[in-house]
């Protein structure tokens, strides 16, 4: 039994943690939240130099040639740091999509610049509120041109390139869907920053009006590839969520030890103590589920869809609870703008929604259990 990260991977974690904590990333996230810039450009350069953007990119394409486990380790630290970077959009979504479905030519075109941090990517899928079901996709991709409108695109203002889910055929439902890569600063593309609950990560509405784009993967395969990209991103995001949830737990615990009410530390009251115990339990369960997701990524297991859905649901629940109860434990001071609590509260919800709501992922858990005929 070896259900843990290796010593090398743990060293990478230590290194990442030390590096990021030296960068005061929470303050930088706050600056982005309050300002108009989309991400911390200095930090992006540093992260590129560390090679993290190419963690899972093969050496042949300029990456580190490490695996998804190393990326999980870094994701957790990104989550702890609330790093205001287009990391997940670029690495978990765009890069993963290219690795999964691109032609050799496309890989050579995109991967090296992605690894060097010269190219920021994203994934534009959603067109309306509600479930992002195949029938909701109306953006068309015909004769090499994209037309349509995407909303809630993470890091959509800063991305140079985007994978776009679009309709290329007349077939209804998912069989008419494809993916395309578009130059987001090119002709026929206009974008607008959207107001969001977590402005430390900017969202954009992107309108395509006959924008040139190249296909990614075969026509009709768009939904299937997107689902796999989302599964992979769900595991990586789960590690981000756990990183965030762990910071909430540690911060709230520390506060509960040092804040006094009625001449006792508030952490000696069961209402606070049991809340923190529940937080710990949630985080541990989420971590274990995420580890299983990491294993499924690492081994390219057929268990991935179930493992990813379980990891996502578990991590979302853990970060949700930890972020909201961290504020509660801090009391009034925790609900001020100056306290960092709300940065985590906002981020917890942003991560919970970014890859689709829990409801959809829970349904996926049960669908997967059904196919396994568990009983």
């Amino acid at each position: 039994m070896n259900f843990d990260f290796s010593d090398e991977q743990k060293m990478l974690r230590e290194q990442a943690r030390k590096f990021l904590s030296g960068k005061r990333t929470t303050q930088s996230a706050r600056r982005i939240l309050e300002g108009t810039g989309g991400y911390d450009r200095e930090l992006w350069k540093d992260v590129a130099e560390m090679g993290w953007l190419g963690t899972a990119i093969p050496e042949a394409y300029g990456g580190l040639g490490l695996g998804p486990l190393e990326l999980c380790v870094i994701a957790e630290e990104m989550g702890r740091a609330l790093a205001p970077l287009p990391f997940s959009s670029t690495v978990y979504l765009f890069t993963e999509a290219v690795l999964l479905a691109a032609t050799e030519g496309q890989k050579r075109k995109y991967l090296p610049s992605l690894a060097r941090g010269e190219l920021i990517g994203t994934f534009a899928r959603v067109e309306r509120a509600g479930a992002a079901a195949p029938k909701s996709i109306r953006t068309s991709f015909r004769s090499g041109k994209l037309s349509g409108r995407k909303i809630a695109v993470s890091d959509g203002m800063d991305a140079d390139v985007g994978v776009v889910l679009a309709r290329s055929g007349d077939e209804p439902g998912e069989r008419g869907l494809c993916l395309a890569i578009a130059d987001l600063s090119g002709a026929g593309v206009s974008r607008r920053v959207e107001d969001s609950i977590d402005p430390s990560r900017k969202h954009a509405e992107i309108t395509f009006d006959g924008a040139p784009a190249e296909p990614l993967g075969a026509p009709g395969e768009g939904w299937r590839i997107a689902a796999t990209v989302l599964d992979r991103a769900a595991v990586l995001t789960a590690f981000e969520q756990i990183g965030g949830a762990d910071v909430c737990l540690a911060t709230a615990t520390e506060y509960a030890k040092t804040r006094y009410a009625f001449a006792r530390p508030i952490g000696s009251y069961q209402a606070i103590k049991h809340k923190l115990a529940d937080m710990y339990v949630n985080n541990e369960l989420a971590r274990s589920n995420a580890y299983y997701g990491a294993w499924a990524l690492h081994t390219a297991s057929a268990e991935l869809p179930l493992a990813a859905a379980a990891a996502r649901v578990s991590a979302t629940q853990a970060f949700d609870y930890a972020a909201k109860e961290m504020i509660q434990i801090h009391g009034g001071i925790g609900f001020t703008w100056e306290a960092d609590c709300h940065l985590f509260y906002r981020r917890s919800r942003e991560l919970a929604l970014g890859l689709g709501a829990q409801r959809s992922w829970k349904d996926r858990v049960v669908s997967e259990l059904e196919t396994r005929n568990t009983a």
Partner: protein
Amino acid sequence: MDFEDTPEEAAFREQVRQWIHTNAPTQASGGDVLGERGGGEWFRQQRAWQAKKAEAGYAKITWPKEFGGLGGTPIQQVIFNQEEARGGIGGNTPFAIGLGMCIPTLMAYCGKEILGRYVKPALYGEEIWCQLFSEPAGGSDVAGLRTRAERDGQDWIVNGQKIWTTGAQFSDYGLLLTRTDFNAPKHKGLTMFYLSMKSAGVEVKPIRQASGASGFNEVFFSDVRIPDSQRVGEIGQGWQVALTTLMHERLAVGGGQGGGLDVPQLLALARELELEDGPAIRNASVREKIADWYVRSAGLKYTTYRTMTALSRGQQPGPEASIAKLVVAAKLQELSAFALELEGEAGALKGADAPMHGAFQMGWMAAPGLRIAGGTDEILRNVIAERVLGLPQDVRLDKDVPFNQLPSGR
């Protein structure tokens, strides 16, 4: 069992309705959805309406006539409030704290001269009061305050800091709880004063909340001089005086909290949105949650009716306000988080970019504050358990020890 007024109540309601119809401002402007107040124009309207009510005796119906009230019953006050709300006016006024808490405290402890000076201007909305009790080190432990008042001849010199002061930025006067004896046990070294908020050395700073709203303030005191004649109650009796103030806080009956975000809005959203398998309103899991929140909302609504019945029968209200705050705050947080989930990826947007103009995003951002302000969930549960069920207090280490020897973690 019915929902009708008694004949007396019906007559009073009719009288009030007539009066409001005749006197109400033509264009009423409320605060915004989640309790923030508007600007100067809003203030002018509030003051004008308040003066009219005071003139007619409706500003404080339960007060005796000598103080400008009607000598009426609590249920008459409820009826007036209902009719005001029906007219789209009233609600969250800038005078509520002064008239609901500060002035009643003065009435209990001060002489005719002081009352003659302060009651009427407050009643007419000419002078606004705030309550200066909470401190950064205190939180739920209000009596743990450290703002120091030291005797200097016929005056007191005050130094320290208050926090979470509603309305301090536009208040004329404040009711101020201070510590005058650091060697006495915690609850025995306190003394109450009132002071002008324009006094030298008083500085008000708005607190920006996590949601971006600024409903509260910090108030700093640097060598602020208060004459002993502005002391309220005896030296060292500040806690008893404060309890009078806080008791009046409990008398607020009924709703309005949660920014009006509840099941009807969620139903509307669920009708509008499509999920994987059809309209959200047809989804069994969505329906189950709507039902869960509905029975809590309905339970609160009918609890208010029971309270009004008790008032109508001349009984005292019970712990309904604590129940309502506890339930409403948790419901707002759960319900709005769920609405964001229904909206999917677009749930992360807000304002005009989100469904229903971001109402649920605003609710979700406001909810953590609602779970804390005016008594945290935990304090409210303590109150219910101890005052209603009679359960014993937690172990208290802070009762008989000099304040300056209490552990404080700092």
